[in-house]
């Protein structure tokens, strides 16, 4: 490997280490705004108590530079890799893995990674196929965007897939999302972001649902039909009365985001991936020269 590539790999590693810790400590402004709006809107006594505690918690995390939530999650990254970015994705992956490990040891952070059969810890939030990286490749570009989304288990455990049939239509999709969120109750730490993936295949629908929770809160799908469904589901979900932490109330979800793909004529898959209220997310842009810009959301 050339010296230039080594330095660049080090930059990506630095970015990953910084993004993992900053995501855990400093929640995005769009989330802060959504939580504040939820606190203003909630009318139930337990619900107001929950949203007030969340507000106090975020302030204390800011003041003390502490983690917002103790669950340091499973490290998930999304990368947009430019066609001309001078580091191969194999090395980008290595850098993300090393950065995750370094942040976990240096801070230190709780390590959650275990072998899926033996349940023995596999290292500093890394392991076989951990961290998890979503890739997109961008033509005619020489940059790299990295987004870190540490995903807590309380909400990840509330993931659901249904292979609806075409005759179930959009109504089937809506019913499945509603029954999933009611069934999840307080377990995924509501109010959060309901990520929905529709179309594609079984595995791809869940991939899309995860992509959906990574978006800034309240952004809308570019397809007006899908955006309309996001609006409708957002309204319906907040009529269920599940409320903050499942204790009953007006605010069950902060948003509903949907990502979609075209699918087979006989398929109608719908996947739900829940993101808890602590919707941690941090992004950086890395230039071909290794410069890192942490303030650039994508």
């Amino acid at each position, binding site marked *: 490997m050339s010296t230039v590539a080594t330095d660049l790999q080090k930059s990506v590693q630095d970015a990953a280490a910084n993004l993992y810790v900053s995501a855990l400590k400093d929640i995005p402004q769009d989330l802060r705004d959504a939580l504040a709006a939820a606190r203003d809107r909630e009318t139930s006594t337990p619900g107001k108590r929950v949203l007030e505690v*969340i507000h106090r918690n975020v302030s204390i995390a800011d003041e003390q530079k502490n983690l917002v939530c*103790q669950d340091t999650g499973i490290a998930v990254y999304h990368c947009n890799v430019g066609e001309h970015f001078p580091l191969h994705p194999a090395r980008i992956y290595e850098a993300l893995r090393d950065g995750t490990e370094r942040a976990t040891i240096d801070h230190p952070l709780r390590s959650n990674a275990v072998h899926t059969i033996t349940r023995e810890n596999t290292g500093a939030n890394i392991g076989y196929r951990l961290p998890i990286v979503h890739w997109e490749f961008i033509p005619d570009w020489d940059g790299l965007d990295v987004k870190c989304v540490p995903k807590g288990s309380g909400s990840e455990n509330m993931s659901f897939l249904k292979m609806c049939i075409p005759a179930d239509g959009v109504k089937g999709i809506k019913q499945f999302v*509603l029954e999933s969120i009611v069934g999840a109750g307080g377990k995924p730490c509501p109010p959060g972001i309901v990520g929905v993936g529709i179309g594609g295949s079984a595995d791809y629908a869940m991939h899309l649902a995860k992509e959906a929770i990574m978006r800034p809160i309240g952004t809308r799908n570019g397809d007006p039909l899908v955006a309309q469904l996001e609006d409708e589901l957002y309204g319906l979900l907040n009529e269920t*009365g599940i409320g903050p932490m499942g*204790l*009953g109330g007006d605010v069950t979800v902060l948003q509903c985001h949907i990502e979609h793909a075209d699918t087979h004529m006989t398929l109608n898959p719908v996947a739900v991936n829940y993101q808890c209220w602590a919707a941690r997310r941090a992004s950086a842009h890395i230039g071909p020269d290794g410069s890192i810009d942490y303030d650039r959301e994508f």
Partner: protein
Amino acid sequence: MASHTVTFPITDPQEILKLRAGDEVTVQGHIIGIRDRTQIRIFDQGVPPPMDLSGAFLLHTAPNVRKLGPGKYEKICIGTTTSARMVRFTEGLGAQYGVRAICGKGGFPDEAIEPMQRLGMVYFAIVGGAAALETTQIEEIEEVLWEELMPECLWKFRVKDFGPLTVGIDAHGNSLYHDVQAAAHEKLKELYARL
């Protein structure tokens, strides 16, 4: 909905019986951190806990800590995990070991209601994810047993003004979770009819 302060461990069962679902509670004294693997060891592997749990308040947790020396840890970030995974241990904790309160997030399903009523136990709902605040209410990690299960050890914490907690399930057969689910399922029928 009343507000209470309760100091744990308790000796008087009345301290639990006075609590009603929906009440707000602040906790003082000592609480015990416990998690999946800790309870799997106690109940599935039959290893009695090396700590007195009578009258205890258990917290579903696996903290972020820094090791200072043998058996000595400093808190970094301590928060609470989802309780529902651990509901099957409720009866054993109450009947065999005298546990009187279990605190976690997300609630217990209905199968916890009957043993909690029979044994005089209560489930406290904490705000999941609010770990930065929770950490400030834990004054010290006084004891850590079963360190080999790190981070799912038995943790003894001294707390000050721990809360506010909401009584999710009381010792009188009431569960907020049951009530919210029942109402939501009724509501779903109405929502489905509108789709």
